[in-house]
């Protein structure tokens, strides 16, 4: 037992610190081990994606976003601003689903479909929502609802939609699909006020969708036409986000390498070792740049 522990200790020492036995260079920094690490990361990432696909059935990515949460947070912000809560409208929800489907079908990330010039208001008309005011917010690649709604709040144009006193109804769609080559969850939130409030259909507050995607927002429309309501797609919900896992694996690996380089630099400096190796500070600079880049990657776009 003791011999095994001693061997393990020695192996770890050679893995992480410079030593005559490893030619004064931690084994972790050797090209062969770095290559093995790269292969491991590729395999781990593929494993996560495959697991997500098996669990989700459609996408390699899943989020915890739900229509209900979006509605709750939206109305929370509205109430905080002294505005009345929005009602979930079935027709707007249907319009939002149609808008999301249109975006996936024509593979675009914009308020207007440039291929057939469909405006967001087109979907209001399709579902027969005669609007007095209409607006659209879009989002994608968010893992949870709160950052998505916060992104809208932080954007003046999206905030205007969320916190407009003109709107009475909303429709939300959370739909998974492949957009521009990326598996994602698209969130469409439509806002509207019916031309004749008395004619507004009963709102269904029950919505259950869990997905992640990008968010886009369209400016308010004053033109008296039809409104768009949110679509909702119900699908699966996974207890993790592949982005978070990939980021964790990536950052852990990079931080570990950076730590080994720092230890190596210190020990080599202290022992005044002379050896043939690359510049540690250059490696550190490169790795630090990657750490900053990856750490700053955020899921979620608003438009």
């Amino acid at each position: 037992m003791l011999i095994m522990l001693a061997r393990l200790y020695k192996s770890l020492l050679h893995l992480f610190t410079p030593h005559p036995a490893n030619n004064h260079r931690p084994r972790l920094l050797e090209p062969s081990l770095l290559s093995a690490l790269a292969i491991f990361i590729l395999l781990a990432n593929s494993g996560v994606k495959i697991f997500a696909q098996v669990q989700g059935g459609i996408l390699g990515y899943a989020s915890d976003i739900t229509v209900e949460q979006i509605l709750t947070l939206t109305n929370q912000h509205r109430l905080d601003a002294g505005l009345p809560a929005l009602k979930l409208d079935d027709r707007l929800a249907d319009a939002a689903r149609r808008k999301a489907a249109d975006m996936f079908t024509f593979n675009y990330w914009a308020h207007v479909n440039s291929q057939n010039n469909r405006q967001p208001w087109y979907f209001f008309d399709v579902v027969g929502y005669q609007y007095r005011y209409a607006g659209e917010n879009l989002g994608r690649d968010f893992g949870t609802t709160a950052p998505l709604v916060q992104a809208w709040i932080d954007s003046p144009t999206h905030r205007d939609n969320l916190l407009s006193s003109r709107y009475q109804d909303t429709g939300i769609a959370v739909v998974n699909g492949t957009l521009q080559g990326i598996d994602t969850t698209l969130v469409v939130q439509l806002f509207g006020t019916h031309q004749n409030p008395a004619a507004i259909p009963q709102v269904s507050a029950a919505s259950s969708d869990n997905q992640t995607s990008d968010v886009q927002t369209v400016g308010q429309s004053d033109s008296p036409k039809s409104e768009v309501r949110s679509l909702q797609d119900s699908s699966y919900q996974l207890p993790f986000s592949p982005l978070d896992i990939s980021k964790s694996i990536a950052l852990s690996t990079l931080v570990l390498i950076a730590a080994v380089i720092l230890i190596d630099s210190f020990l080599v400096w202290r022992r005044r070792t002379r050896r043939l190796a690359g510049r540690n500070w250059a490696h550190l600079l490169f790795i630090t740049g990657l750490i900053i880049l990856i750490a700053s990657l955020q899921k979620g776009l608003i438009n």
Partner: protein
Amino acid sequence: MIITIAAAIAATAYVAWGIIHHSRRGDLHPKIVLEYLALAILGVIITYTVTQSL
């Protein structure tokens, strides 16, 4: 994709710098080139895997 390309450009510059630097110092060795290359490739792969999850 843009992020991965940016990482690949940075990695290429890093390897190129390493080769030039050690060449000028007179201690350029295939082992050193491999070291820079391995780290650069690892960096690009890591960035690629993360961006694929976006």
